[in-house]
Structure formats: C-alpha cells, structure tokens
C-alpha cells in the first residue's frame, strides 16, 4: 500500500527531511536509507491522523483555486477558524492569508 507524500511538507515532515539531509551530507546515511525513512514517515503520519478526532470549520475569501492532477489548491484571505478539540474546547484563529493543499481522500479508503 502506498501513502501520500503530502505530509512531508508539514513541520514534522520538514524537520525529518532536514535531519536526514544533514546525516546524508555527513555520510552517516545513504540516500536510499533516507528514502526508506521518509516512506515510513508517510505511513506513520497517515495512521496517526486517522486517530485525530478534532473538527475544524473555516470561512474566508477565496483568491485562487486550482485543481490539477487530483490535487486541490486554495489560496484564501481573511480566514477565520474554529477548532473544537476532544474536550469540547474551542480555539479560534484569524489569518490574513492561508494556503490549502488537499489530495483526493476518496480514492483510497484507508490512506
């Protein structure tokens, strides 16, 4: 089973990529092992997100939209968020600019 590589761009993924880069540069790791670690990360991140129960709603103005290769990209402005956590607490945030990148979540039932 393959998993999306999308989450490599998250903070957790970027910091892992940085760490791997550094170790490959110092000849502590081979690039092929580093790739295996990233593939493992795709899987673990996806499985971990299955356990997240928090719900978020957001509203905003859509500046740019793009649908290419089954990936939606939205550039939003003046976005308000509200996230309700597991304990029922609600966190809100307002942002000037926001980019959303979303892969197709329907084709793969469990990915």
């Amino acid at each position, binding site marked *: 089973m393959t998993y999306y590589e*999308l*989450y490599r*761009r*998250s*903070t*957790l993924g970027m*910091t*892992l990529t*940085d*760490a*791997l880069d550094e*170790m490959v540069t110092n000849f*502590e*790791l*081979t690039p092929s*092992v580093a790739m*295996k*670690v990233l593939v*493992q*990360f795709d*899987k*673990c*991140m*996806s*499985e*971990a*997100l*299955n*356990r*997240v129960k*928090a*719900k*978020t*709603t*957001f*509203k905003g*103005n*859509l500046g740019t*939209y793009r*649908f290419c290769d089954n990936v*939606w990209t*939205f550039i*939003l402005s003046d*976005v308000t*968020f509200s996230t309700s956590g*597991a304990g029922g607490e609600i*966190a809100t*945030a307002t*942002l*000037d*600019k*926001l*980019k*959303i*990148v*979303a*892969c*197709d*979540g*329907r084709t793969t039932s469990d990915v």
Partner: protein
Amino acid sequence: MDVASLYLQVMNNVIDGVRGDFSSEQLDESVLESLASLWERKLLQSGSSAPERETNNDIAEKAVDEPGLVHNEKVNCSSEEQQISSAAVKGLKEDSAESLSSDSDEGLVDLCSSNLVLAQYDKVTRAKNKWKCTLKKGVMTLDGKDVLFGKASGEFLW
C-alpha cells in the same frame, strides 16, 4: 490528544519502523538514535508543537534551553527578507516592475509566515461564487503553530 504527544508517537513509530531497514544495511543502532535526537531537536527549534498551556513541561524546558537557536533562525529569516526586498527595489528601478513587486510581496508571506493546510478532500462543491469543501486528516501550520484535525469543513466566497 495534543499535537506534541501525537508527534512524539509518530516519531517513535517511524524510528521503530525503520529499525529493520537500518540493521539490514549494517547501520549501527547509534545512527538510528542520532537521527531520532536530531529530528526531535529540529522539531523543538521550530517551536510549532510547543504546548501553549504547559501540558508537557519537559518539551517547554528543552525549548527554553535553546533560545539562541530559535532567535538565530528568526534573524536569518528577516535578513533573507531584506535581501529579497532589496532585490525587489532593484527591480523597481525599471519602470515595468510594478507587477514584479507585488509578486515578491507574496513570496515574503510564503517565506516568513506561511499558513499552510495539508489535508485530503472528501468533497469540493461550488454554487455561483460560493465554495464548500469537506476535508479530512489535516495538518495545519497557523501562525507558526501546528494544529491537527480529523475532519474540517470550509466555506469561502470567490
């Protein structure tokens, strides 16, 4: 579950998951450990998952241990910004550079405070200029803080 503890789980799962790959490549256990600690250190430096309400004192203390590093990163970021804006100023000397300058403004936003949502969509619909979308399994970086969601719905006007 808060972001920091979920991240910790992912890190442990990844490290455990590649242990077999490492040993079949004849890599020492210490290499795996140094990867784990390097990753953890970089994550702490990013400050994205440091709990706002100090639920995990350990992480908070570690983050305080290295204020210099965090500070340096910010300095780098702003100097990068300055370089870019001076480049934009150079570009402006040519008359046609009006559009160029607005382009580089967008670049700056991307560099220093990129608010990014990575997710998977269930449905995206549009009626006239009203868009609705439902997302799942999302990781958001909002003002430098990471937030996760299981499901999300959004409404926007174009």
